[in-house]
């Protein structure tokens, strides 16, 4: 049942066409810039009868959520909007920009939609209020119940317009959740908490989900057959295959950026080392050979290096291994407990966690070393950093509200926001690549 719904969800296409030419990007938002005042009007229903699915507000709400999440916009409260979206126009010349400049909007999103059977057609436009001109116009059609994805796609376009880089709102987070019970299962959800699916349901312990480079499958460690083995779950077919089931720990599988190999930790006789496996799970190469703990490999975006955790120096620290030469260098020196490394998609730094006093906090450090930057700063534990595919955000878990929940922040540590709120503990988030 779970499998079937996943297949339906993931086998999905939105058709898209430009209804106006996109202009050059404005590049007036970003870290350190003042928030850009934006209005997002509910959409005009151009079909007959009632709005069948509250799409008018639903689509606007999803765009508002994304813009807000980015931390770069100040979305004006809908209660202050002057015009009635069902009576006003949504194209240039069919509404009065003064209705929007009056309330302080500089950017404006308007749109229309119609529904026929199960299909929805949506037109969305971004206007520059001060210049009274249209910046972006797009037409989408797809299944009506996927209306949020259309909204997220347009939010991605807005981000691209303002920053030059496509947004990441059509992505998902895989994570581990207890959902209030005693078992740990793998879940996948959209950033806004919608389209939430439980991937595993084997009533044991399932850990460390990570995405394949194409975003179509999830690798995870499970105790479902007693031994902690690696499994690969295909989100499209629902097929779950044993990937590495060597006796002992099979841990932390990370697909290489080129999709050809997987870096894992394997345990033999109590000792963990890092190996490269091929696409079938066979060992290609052993990467570490020490009587120390060697775990949690994370790839550099060019696939030439791995950062990993080792206690070879007496305490857990981060090390960088260059694959071609086989040389290893120690990266972290401050703090007695540094783990959970995640190499940024831009390649310049590594996020990780460090023990400060009795608590864990998220830091970043340049790949060349140097002074770490602290991103979380409070009297709780902050763990498991995972980068967005554009490198502008980090998702992580924190127990700042009692139980562990997932949070998102900008790469600078600003604008920390909670994403999940199940009755259980949500941990180990893994951010997907961009999905179609």
């Amino acid at each position, binding site marked *: 049942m779970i499998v079937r719904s996943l297949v339906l969800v993931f086998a999905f296409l939105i058709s898209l066409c430009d209804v106006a030419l996109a202009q050059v990007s404005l590049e007036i938002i970003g870290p350190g810039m003042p928030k850009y005042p934006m209005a997002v009007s509910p959409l005009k229903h151009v079909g007959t009868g009632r709005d069948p699915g509250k799409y008018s507000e639903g689509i606007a709400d999803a765009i508002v959520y994304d813009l807000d999440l980015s931390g770069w916009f100040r979305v004006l409260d809908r209660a202050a909007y002057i015009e009635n979206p069902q009576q006003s126009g949504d194209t240039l010349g069919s509404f009065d920009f003064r209705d929007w400049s009056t309330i302080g909007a500089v950017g404006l999103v308007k749109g229309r939609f119609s529904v026929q059977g199960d299909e929805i057609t949506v037109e969305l436009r971004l206007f520059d209020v001060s210049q009274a001109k249209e910046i972006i116009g797009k037409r989408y059609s797809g299944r009506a119940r996927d209306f949020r994805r259309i909204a997220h796609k347009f939010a991605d376009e807005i981000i691209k317009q303002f920053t030059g880089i496509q947004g990441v709102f059509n992505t998902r987070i895989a994570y581990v959740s207890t959902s209030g019970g005693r078992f740990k299962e793998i879940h996948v959800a959209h950033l806004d908490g919608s389209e939430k699916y439980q991937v595993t349901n084997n009533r044991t312990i399932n850990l460390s989900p990570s995405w394949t480079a194409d975003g179509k499958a999830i690798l995870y460690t499970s105790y479902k057959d007693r031994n902690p083995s690696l499994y690969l779950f295909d989100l499209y077919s629902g097929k779950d295959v044993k990937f590495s089931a060597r006796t002992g720990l099979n841990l932390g599988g990370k697909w290489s950026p080129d999709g050809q190999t997987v870096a894992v930790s394997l345990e033999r006789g109590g000792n963990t080392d890092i190996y490269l496996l091929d696409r079938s799970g066979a060992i290609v190469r052993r990467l570490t050979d020490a009587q120390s703990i060697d775990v949690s490999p994370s790839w550099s975006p060019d696939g030439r290096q791995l950062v990993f955790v080792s206690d070879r120096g007496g305490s*857990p620290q981060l090390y960088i291994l260059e694959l071609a030469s086989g040389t290893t260098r120690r990266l972290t020196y401050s703090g007695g407990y540094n783990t959970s490394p995640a190499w940024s998609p831009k390649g310049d730094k590594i996020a990780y966690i460090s023990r400060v006093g009795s608590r864990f906090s998220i830091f970043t450090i340049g790949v060349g070393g140097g002074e770490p930057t602290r991103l979380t700063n409070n009297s709780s534990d902050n763990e498991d950093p995972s980068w967005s595919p554009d490198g502008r955000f980090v998702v992580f878990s924190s127990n700042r509200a009692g139980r562990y929940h997932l949070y998102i922040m900008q790469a600078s540590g600003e604008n920390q926001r909670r994403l999940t709120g199940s009755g259980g503990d949500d941990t180990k988030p893994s951010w997907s690549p961009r999905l179609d």
Partner: protein
Amino acid sequence: MKVQFKALRYFVVAIASLLIGGCAPSATTKPEAPPSASSSAAATEGAGTQRQGEGQRGGASESTVPPGSLDALRQGKSTATPSTSPLQDIFFDFDRYDLRSDARDTLRTNADWLKNNPSARIEIEGHCDERGTNEYNLALGAKRAQSAKDYLVTLGVSAERLSTISYGEEIPVCKDQTETCWRRNRRARFVVIPARPAS
């Protein structure tokens, strides 16, 4: 097919529990073992001295030999080792897997029991407290289980009878965020496993 196999396995576990349980001291003759390392070592030493007289006792309860932590988790049972178990837990310091002297004492008692029960096979579980990263803790748990195994082997227990598994921080016995609780979770557990039918 699978269901039948599973049922068979539980049956085997039950039989094994009865057989092995017959050698164990009864619950009524034992003091409650608090989680602190020194007193649990004392309790198991007490068990060792009582063993001879109780070899003939039958009808030991299932609790005498606890199920493995994963089975206990699945069944919603406590994953704590009862004070009646002939094989007591050993405890570790934070981020360490070397054996403390109290752990060595407990391991000597456990080794004696293993020598007196030569058909018993043991799975050694390595556990950690909740602090730190899951993956690192899984590797640390594997080290802890291996340290216990290596010491039992040096005490003369055949390595073939000893397997290891790490549960890292995933199956704690105590869930409070206190040092008292964390200390109880940094442990190795010893679970009697039945001979599995070849599959």
